[in-house]
C-alpha cells in the first residue's frame, strides 16, 4: 500500500537543507516558494530515504488570483508519495523553473501547462505549444478564457 508521507516531517527536512523554502505543509502536501522549485526537486529526488525518482504527474490549476502548480511525486522503491505545490501570483507573466533536468518525464507535461495555462518554464529545452497551434489566442484552461 502506498504510504502517504507526513508532509510536516519532509518540510522540516527541506527547511534544514534549504532554509526559508516552505510556506506551509498539511496532510501530504507541501507548498514551497516558487524560486526554490528546482532545488527542492533535486533534494527530494536525491536524498536517501526519500528517493522521489518518479514524477507521477505535473499539472496546474487556475485559482483566479493565482496559479497553483502541482507536482505529484512517488518513490517506486519505498512506495511512498508526496505532493509538492507552488503558488504563482504573477498572472501577467507567470514563470517557474523547469524540472526537466531532474525528471525527464516533466517534458511534455510542462509544455502542456505552457500551452493551456501560459506558464513559462525557464530552462525547458523546447518550450512551445504542444496541443494547440502557433498563433492560437489565449490559454484555454485559464478561468478567464473566452472563446
Amino acid at each position, binding site marked *: *500500500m*502506498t504510504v502517504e508521507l507526513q508532509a510536516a516531517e519532509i518540510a522540516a527536512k527541506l527547511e534544514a537543507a534549504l532554509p526559508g523554502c516552505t510556506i506551509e505543509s498539511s496532510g501530504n502536501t507541501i507548498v514551497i516558494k516558487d524560486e526554490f522549485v528546482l532545488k527542492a526537486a533535486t533534494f527530494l529526488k536525491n536524498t536517501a530515504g526519500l528517493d522521489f*525518482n*518518479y*514524477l*507521477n*504527474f505535473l*499539472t496546474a*490549476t*487556475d485559482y483566479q488570483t493565482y496559479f497553483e502548480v*502541482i507536482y*505529484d511525486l512517488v518513490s*517506486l522503491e519505498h*512506495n511512498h508519495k508526496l505532493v509538492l505545490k507552488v503558488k504563482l501570483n504573477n498572472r501577467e507573466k507567470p514563470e517557474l523553473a523547469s524540472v526537466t533536468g531532474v*525528471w*525527464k*518525464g*516533466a*517534458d*511534455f*507535461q510542462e509544455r*502542456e501547462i505552457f500551452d*493551456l495555462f501560459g506558464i513559462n518554464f525557464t530552462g525547458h529545452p523546447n518550450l512551445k*505549444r*504542444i*496541443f*494547440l*497551434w502557433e498563433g492560437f489566442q489565449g490559454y*484555454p*484552461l485559464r478561468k478567464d*478564457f473566452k472563446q
Partner: protein
Amino acid sequence: MALKTETFLVNAGPQHPSTHGVFRMRFILDGEVIQDVEPVFGYLHRGIEKLAEGLTYSQDMVFTDRLDYLASMTNNQAYAVAVEKLAGIQVPERAEYLRVIMAELMRISSHLMGVGFLTNDIGAFLTPLLYMYREREKILDLFDMVCGQRLTYNYMRIGGVSQDIPEEFLPALKKFIDTLPRFIQEYEQLLATNEILLVRTKNVGILTKEAAINYSTAGPVLRASGVKWDIRKAEPYSVYSRFNFEIPTGSKGDVYDRYRIKIEEMKQSIGIIKQAMEQLPQGEIQAKIPKVLRPPKGEAYGRIEGPKGELGFYLVSDGATNPYRLHIRPPSLLNLTPLRELVIGVKIADAMAIFGSIDICMGEVDR
C-alpha cells in the same frame, strides 16, 4: 572522392498507416537511419479538461469514454474512483466486483489490440490483427450484453455501476474465459516462434530501468524495463487486494519484452476474472448518492492501473456541482516521452515497431 550527403525531413502523419490515429512525427533522415525526431501532437485535442469544467460530475463521465477509446471501461473506473474519493462515497461490494470483471476484460481487449497493431506495424498483412479482433469481438459482445454499447459504455457510474448484469452474462463470460487461454496459446505459437518477428523485436528499442523511471513511463512499458510496479498491488483499489495474481516484468525493456508483458498480463487477467466470478456477491450495485453531486471543497487524486499504465484523475472541487478543475494523468502521453531517445539512430522500420510497442491511444494523448 568525398560524396556530399544531405539529411532530409520526412513527415510521418497525421495520416499515416502506423501512427495509430493522428500522431505526427517529423523525422530527420540520413538515408534509412533516423537522425532526430520531433513528435507533434494535438490533432485530436478536443479540450476535454475545459469542457468538463462546464458540466456536472456525473455528466463528465461520458468524456472519459472518449479518452482511451480502446479501454473505455477502465477510464470510467478511474474517474469514478477519483470522484468517490473526493466525495467520500462507499461503493457496494457487488458493484466493485462487476467493475473488476469489466476492467480486466477491457485490459485483455486493449492488450489484444496492442499486440495486433504491433504485428501490423512490423508488417504482417493484417492476419494476426484480424485473429485478435475475433477475440475482441467476443469481449465487445459481453459488454454489449451488459450495457448495450460496443465502444463507449458509460457503464460505471459514480457510486457503482449503471445496471446489474443480465442472467445470461455469467455463463457467457465463463464460456469465453474458458476458451481464451487456448487462443492466447495459439497467438503465442503464431508469433513467439516466428523467426522474423523475433528478429524484428528483440534488442530493438531498449529502454533501461533508470530511464523508464526518469521518463515517468507507466504500465507495460515500465514493467518491461524490469520495474515491478502495478497500482493494483502498490495501492490496491477496489477489491484487488482479495485476488491472487502476479505482476509480470521484463528484463531488457526491448520491443519483445513489451509484447510479452502484454501476453502475460492477459493470462493474469483471466485468473483475476475467474476469482472475481467465484467471489461475486449478491446485493446492491449502486450507492445512495444525491441526484446532483456536490462534493465538499477540496481536491483528490484517484488512480487505477489502466491497460496502458497508471491512469489518474486529479479533481479540484469548490463545493459546486461542477468540478473546478479536472486533470487527467494520461499514461499514453507519458509513455511517449522516451520516444525520441529510443528512436534516434534506428531505422524507420524499427521506429515504427518501437512506436507500436509503446501502444498509445491518441484520444488519451491529446485529450
